């Protein structure tokens, strides 16, 4: 299927819908950006990383990709750049990564969060020297990790120019996706594992070593079924991640049903999205365990006083903006063309 065919499948209505989902999600993220602030305990020895550095890193990761996948003239680019700049300032323009690393020298998350900024051209030479010192040890390289996690660390190291001898193909073969599993064994945990393998191999949709042919074929065959069943189950967060993965499958290996599944994702996500732009992780009307409907009021979508609404929505809202950006880039043919200059110059300012 040619890029023109893909664009034909992705009719203008679907394109407008995906774009509207993305813009609404970014508006909600911008309005609620104060919830991404690290807080006083971010450098504490017992700091709650999942409530501080993790959300900030995810914001940076998504915005870095959106900046790379849109031209500077696009309002989405401007919005993502502003959010990225906000997040970078929150890290003291990279300076906070130094005390963070001193607290846990062999923890990988500081490097992984930093790498999201570095991939957008936001760098702190002092931290990179410190990270390189630790990464040069045998102990760092021998850290025992699941292969999907290891691929994530390799992805992060790649962003700051560190390379090691790990064979990504061998690591990949030990992941759920890389082992080419029977597609009907897909469940939530394996779904999140597979999406992250793809994100790590593609530098979150910005490049990277890419997908080996067998993995790309596997995704081309089966991601429509995974995507549709996630949508049918109201697993909005995972559905957005799988949609992002599908958008990264090389176009030449796909078919009309594949493109239709990706396109039809957007009206369904649009219906699930609150008018505020927030998207819950799961459909609360579905039988699986889910946060309460009251967590985010449908009409305003603003987080409650305790921030609970933010926690249940921020990741899926980020993933909606991310997946929509990759889908639109696919439809625009950006994925198939040489990187224009705005994809490699990073984030200005």
């Amino acid at each position, binding site marked *: 299927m040619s890029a023109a065919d893909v664009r034909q499948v992705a009719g203008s209505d679907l394109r407008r819908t995906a774009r509207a989902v993305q813009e609404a999600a970014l508006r909600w993220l911008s309005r609620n950006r104060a919830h991404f602030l690290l807080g006083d305990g971010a450098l504490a020895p017992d700091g709650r990383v999942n409530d501080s550095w993790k959300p900030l890193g995810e914001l940076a990761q998504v915005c870095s990709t959106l900046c790379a996948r849109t031209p500077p003239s696009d309002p989405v680019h401007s919005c993502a750049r502003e959010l990225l700049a906000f997040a970078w300032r929150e890290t003291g323009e990279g300076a906070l990564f130094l005390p963070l690393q001193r607290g846990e020298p062999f923890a990988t998350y500081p490097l992984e969060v930093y790498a999201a900024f570095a991939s957008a051209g936001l760098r702190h030479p002092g931290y990179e020297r410190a990270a390189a010192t630790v990464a040069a040890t045998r102990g760092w390289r021998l850290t025992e990790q699941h292969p999907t996690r290891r691929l994530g660390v390799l992805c992060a190291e790649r962003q700051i120019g560190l390379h090691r001898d790990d064979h990504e193909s061998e690591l990949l073969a030990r992941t759920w996706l890389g082992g*080419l599993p*029977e597609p*009907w064994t897909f469940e939530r945990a394996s779904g999140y594992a597979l999406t992250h393998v793809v994100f790590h191999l593609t530098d979150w949709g910005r490049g990277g070593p890419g997908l080996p042919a067998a993995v790309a074929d596997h995704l081309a*065959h089966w991601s429509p*079924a995974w995507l*549709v069943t996630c949508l049918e189950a109201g697993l909005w967060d995972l559905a957005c991640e799988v949609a992002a993965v599908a958008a990264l499958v090389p176009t030449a290996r796909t078919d009309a*049903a594949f493109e239709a599944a990706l396109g039809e994702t957007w009206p369904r996500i649009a219906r699930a999205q609150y008018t505020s732009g927030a998207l819950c992780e799961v459909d609360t009307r579905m039988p699986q365990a889910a946060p309460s409907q009251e967590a985010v009021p449908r009409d305003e979508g603003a987080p409650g006083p305790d921030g609970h609404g933010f926690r249940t929505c921020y990741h899926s809202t980020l993933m909606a903006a991310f997946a929509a950006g990759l889908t639109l880039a696919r439809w625009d043919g950006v994925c198939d063309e040489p990187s224009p200059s705005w994809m490699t110059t990073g984030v200005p300012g």
Partner: protein
Amino acid sequence: MKQSGASALLQGAVQDLASGVASALRGGGRTSREDLHATVRSTSDLDLAAARVLGADLLLPAVLDGTAPTGPEVDLARRAFDAYPPPVTAAPTVAWSHWALGHTLRRVGAPSGPVPEPGPEPDASWLTGAPWPSLTHHLAVLAPLALPGQDCAVARLARGRTLDVARGFVRAIRRRDWYQAAGAGRWLAVLPDVPHTLGLPSGLDFVELMGGGDARVLLQVRAARLIGSGVSV
């Protein structure tokens, strides 16, 4: 209440009959139809309705075995064919199911008595271009048409959409719709170029493990295995 009670009785009769067919398909080699003979000897209206629900699969052991069906099998199938002609307003799957029963009766022949005329193939254009989830749903209902060498419009259409049916098989398992999964699995046993990454044999085992308590599921899984083992009809 009365209707749901009747429905439950019919479901029970379908299960009994399907169980007889599934037992006859057990083993993977030549079929043994002792269990089936016990169930097809029933003659109530309920059994006739159950036979119509099961359709052409009532004769599946004979078809896959390559031997002539017994008198009671043919008698029940023929009476079910005659008793439930599809109205002109019937859903396409109902018309096709009825045609499949008549076609199979003609195919296996009858020990005695006239062979019914199945009539021309119903229209299949409604399936053309169907999205893969609904295509798989309809094909699963029409699983009795999934036989090696079957030449009809539905089978020809399915042969051009292997990947779509394979995706539907995945979706059905994800939805825990074991009946649809088993029917799709049976189609995949006769379709060309099934991606090996699907893992159809272990998928059928999984469907039986999870949904094999339903005799209709068991019937389709065993049919798929027999067909997949290369049985020629």
